[in-house]
């Protein structure tokens, strides 16, 4: 096993699937809500299921929010998954009045347009640029970002009624609306790439 990856429990997330995926990639996982540990750790995963407000409530206690924003600004290896990605936005329709971390200057919105909500299942992710390959990944979400989340982020898109941001990466930071830990071989490759090079 290589160096432990620090997993931040947001109180609502089921972490077992993320930890199992890290273990399959050869990395033990350690859980912590200590902001200093989050600042120092080589690699941090911010998983998330549950609601935007519940996740933010946990992150605002004890300075986790600032520690995460600092890591991302400093381009330290950080992987945000599903609601973990959504809390990087400024706000969400899911929880009006609750501020997100504001890394992405956009608002997370609900799917519409005659599709099933939540989106539960596999969808094709289309990276904007080579060398990334399209592939099938697993989503479980009612909300998503529909606008490009600012400059400098490489994006991958998927469509469920409307086109939405399926992943955004910049340097060592990877934010996935899909669940790489549940996305079979493609997801495992994505996690291994993030672990291996620190690059997203």
């Amino acid at each position, binding site marked *: 096993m290589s160096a432990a990856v620090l997993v931040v429990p947001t109180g609502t997330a*089921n972490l*077992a*699937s993320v930890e199992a995926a890290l273990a399959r990639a050869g990395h033990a996982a350690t859980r912590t809500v200590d902001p200093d540990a989050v600042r120092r750790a080589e690699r941090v995963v911010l998983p998330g*299921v549950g609601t935007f407000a*519940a996740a933010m409530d946990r992150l605002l206690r004890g300075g986790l929010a600032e520690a995460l924003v600092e890591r991302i600004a400093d381009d330290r290896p950080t992987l945000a998954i599903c609601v973990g990605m959504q809390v990087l936005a400024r706000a969400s329709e899911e929880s009006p009045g609750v501020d997100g971390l504001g890394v992405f200057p956009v608002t997370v919105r609900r799917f519409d347009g005659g599709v*099933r909500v*939540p989106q539960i299942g*596999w969808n094709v992710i289309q990276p904007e640029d080579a060398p990334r390959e399209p592939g099938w990944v697993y989503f*479980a979400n009612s909300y998503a970002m529909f606008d490009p989340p600012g400059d400098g982020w490489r994006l991958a898109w998927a469509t469920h009624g409307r086109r939405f941001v399926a992943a955004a990466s910049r340097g060592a930071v990877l934010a996935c609306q899909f669940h790489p830990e549940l996305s079979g071989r493609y997801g495992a490759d994505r996690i291994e790439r993030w672990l291996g090079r620190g690059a997203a």
Partner: protein
Amino acid sequence: MSARRILPCLDVDAGRVVKGIRFQGLRDAGDPRERALLYQDQGADEIVVLDVSATPQGRDHGVEVTRRIRDALSIPLTVGGGVRTADDAARLLDSGADKVALNTAAVLDPALLDRLAARFGAQCTILAVDARATSPGRYEVVVRSGRDGTGRDVVDWTREATARGAGEILLTSWDRDGTREGYDLDLIRAVASAVEVPVIASGGADRIEHFRDALDAGADAVLAASVFHDGNWTVSSVKQALLASGIEVRP
């Protein structure tokens, strides 16, 4: 739109996969971990584990089976059976389930759905409904493996459950379950048109047309057990046939 899904189901009794007709006459069908990994390799979109023996005394079986499967499984895992409280659900999620299915407990205490959705999110909270036809186009919710009627209308109940926060409906036709006569298409149409959340059709799969007809009737996913356990179909052969008839599934 996300693709339609094929979900092999493992009915687990005391740590072993079993199969039977209308929840009766259970026969052994192997080790749940081996089965789950086999179906993952065949291209299953998720694995569903229903602990058919779950009792308050036996609920650790579900946790143990979940943990054993999770270690190796890199696709979603839904676990149901014996979930009576939000803490029961938390135990299963902590051991590696991604979604939890509620059945009888939700009928007895519908607010349990609100509590689970608030704590874990709608996408974690599945309502499992066993439906029995009472008259043409009418279905009654039955519980305790079909032994008890509830007097509740299935369409009304699925509407209420999704309003309370259920993010998916696992819809089993009690009349068709284990019979291999095909999914109950009227039941699927009735529920799929009544709710916004995805509907998983269950009960009656045998031939390839059954899968196709259920998806055409509005199901987002089809669940089957015996046809996969007996080797009549592999998940990949079902998917190839569906793709050939123009239904989008993950190849």
